[in-house]
């Protein structure tokens, strides 16, 4: 699952992962190209279905990739990451419904709120290890879910936020227009991924890997493990909330399921599908997951069985995510060619 285990199984490969040249320009270029390609998609294919798919990919992709910052990079198995997705969707939706502030204001206010909540919850959670961390994050998730269900006057309870989320135009962008929403979602996705990539490749990103590999040793080279874990917990929460906001805009509402534990379960499943050892693994997983979900739901009412078998195939059969598999296969081929 982790790089650690991938490393143990493989031959001593020579991998130069830190480049001498700054990679940021390359990442920026890739991000720009990706955005242009995505933005041109509607010109080539007019299918609304495809655009919807990309918007959902953006929401889920930001969520899953941010979860990978915790699971894959830091070794923090959060079973409550979905709470920030739900929190983002609800607080954005509520702010738009109740206050009528412009969308960018609501966007940043939601991020600020998520920041505060994540600091408080994170400060409690990151003290705990492994399975206890998973449990306490799950408990917080369920606590937030129960609060959403029971605070009916504000959240609409189990019916969700109804009546639509107003989307007044700002700066010439009208998010009630499907095409505008599509381009905005793509922009948020690309920017989010670019930022997360920078975090992962920064010295801080390597601090996280050190904590995952050997937290004790990390503290003996002067790293404040607790603070680093809290920092990534909060950062990941911000990206998850962004995903939640895209979702809220897309469905023009918010539902308790966004904050239910299954959201976190799906996030982990997505990471598993795509693989956690590459940065884009969760993105690949997101696409696989959404395609899988859509097809299976269409074909059979028993989609639980099909999804379950797919999970078993990856967990017991392949023992790694798709991208892990691909990367290892390439590395092996390269080393065979060389030797």
């Amino acid at each position, binding site marked *: 699952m982790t790089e650690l285990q991938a490393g143990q199984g493989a031959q001593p490969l020579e991998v130069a992962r830190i480049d001498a040249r700054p990679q940021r320009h390359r990442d920026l270029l890739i991000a720009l190209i990706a955005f242009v390609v995505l933005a041109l998609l509607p010109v080539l294919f007019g299918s609304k279905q495809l655009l919807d798919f990309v918007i959902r990919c953006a929401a889920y992709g930001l969520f899953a990739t941010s979860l990978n910052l915790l699971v894959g990079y830091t070794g923090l198995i959060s079973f409550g990451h979905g709470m920030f997705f739900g929190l983002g969707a609800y607080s954005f939706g509520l702010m738009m419904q109740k206050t009528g502030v412009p969308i960018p204001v609501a966007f940043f206010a939601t991020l600020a709120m998520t920041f505060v909540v994540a600091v408080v919850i994170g400060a409690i959670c990151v003290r705990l290890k492994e399975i206890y961390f998973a449990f306490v994050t799950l408990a917080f998730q369920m606590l937030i879910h129960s609060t959403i269900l029971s605070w009916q006057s504000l959240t609409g309870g189990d019916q969700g936020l109804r009546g639509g989320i107003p989307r007044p135009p700002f700066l010439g962008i009208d998010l009630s227009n499907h095409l505008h929403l599509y381009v905005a979602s793509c922009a948020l996705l690309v920017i989010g991924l670019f930022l997360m990539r920078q975090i992962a490749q920064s010295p801080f990103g390597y601090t996280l890997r050190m904590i995952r590999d050997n937290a004790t040793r990390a503290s003996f080279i002067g790293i404040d493990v607790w603070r680093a874990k809290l920092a990534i917990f909060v950062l990941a929460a911000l990206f998850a909330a962004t995903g939640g906001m895209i979702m809220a805009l897309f469905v023009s509402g918010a539902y308790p399921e966004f904050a239910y534990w299954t959201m976190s379960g799906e996030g*982990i499943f997505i990471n598993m599908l795509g693989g956690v050892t590459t940065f884009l693994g969760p993105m690949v997983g997101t696409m696989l997951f959404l395609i899988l979900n859509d097809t299976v739901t269409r074909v059979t009412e028993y989609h639980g069985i099909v999804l379950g078998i797919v999970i078993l195939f990856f967990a017991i059969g392949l023992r790694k995510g798709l991208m892990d598999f691909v990367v290892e296969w390439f590395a092996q081929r390269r080393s065979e060619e060389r030797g």
Partner: protein
Amino acid sequence: MIPVDLDALASCLTSPACLVTQTTSGLIIGMLLFLVAVGLTLIFGVLKVVNFSHGAFYMFGAYFAMTAYQLTGSFALAILSGAVGTAILGLIFERVFMSRVYGRDVLMQLLVCYAFVLIFDDVVRMIWGPEFKSMGMPAAFQVPPLFIAGGVVPPYYLLLIGVALAAAVVLGLGLARSRIGKVIRAAAHNPGMVSALGINTGLIYGGVFALGGMLAGLAGALAAPVRSLTPGMGFSVLIESFIVTVIGGMGSILGALIGALLIGLIRSFGSLGFPLFTEGLMYLFMVIVLVSRPTGLFGKEVA
């Protein structure tokens, strides 16, 4: 804001009749939870695996019992088939699937269990249908309720509490006194040592899973007359048992008992004072326990 009805709670706390009613209902919730949670905690103690699919055994126990009752009309057979059926299911599940992920990432184990949560729910939906089912109260218990200090107590509740308590005592004594119990405790402490002594750890692991499955199945069978049966019924029980084991301390049987009773009482009294936030209360309680004692009330301190 979240609706709060503290007056109802206060008036119940001062009325003996209401106290008795709420306490018994809290006790049956607690005892059912205990049976599920103790299997969970036992499996974790010995195998170091968090069986995320444990709720499914509870569900299967209930459905097995219902079918057996409908076929034979015997309540005793219904309970028995619920317990034995899930024991066999637990054994197969452990040998065929879980045994492949021991020693791997926690993440992998959780995923395999997650897969089975999905699969088992759909299997039940296929066999028994998606709608709510009811087993009905066995004839022997279709008698007027008892009145204790003015509080209503259905006789079936007493049976349920009695059976669960008996299971707790047998289990506690068995683990403490019997040879198998000692082997299980030794395996929990040091698996390598047990296999070095020539004891088949695979057998123990399978046995522990079967035992855990059986207890959850027993809980499901006992619950069948008083709960409605639906695919997915295992999940809320699972989450609550998790809370119980985490509060009580993973691996501790006494902890599971105390935790289950606390949760049962919080549920039954909380439903008066915080009708819509009862579940929230449990999570809140769990958070408080975890923050003040990360390994639970009776968990071993990690050095």
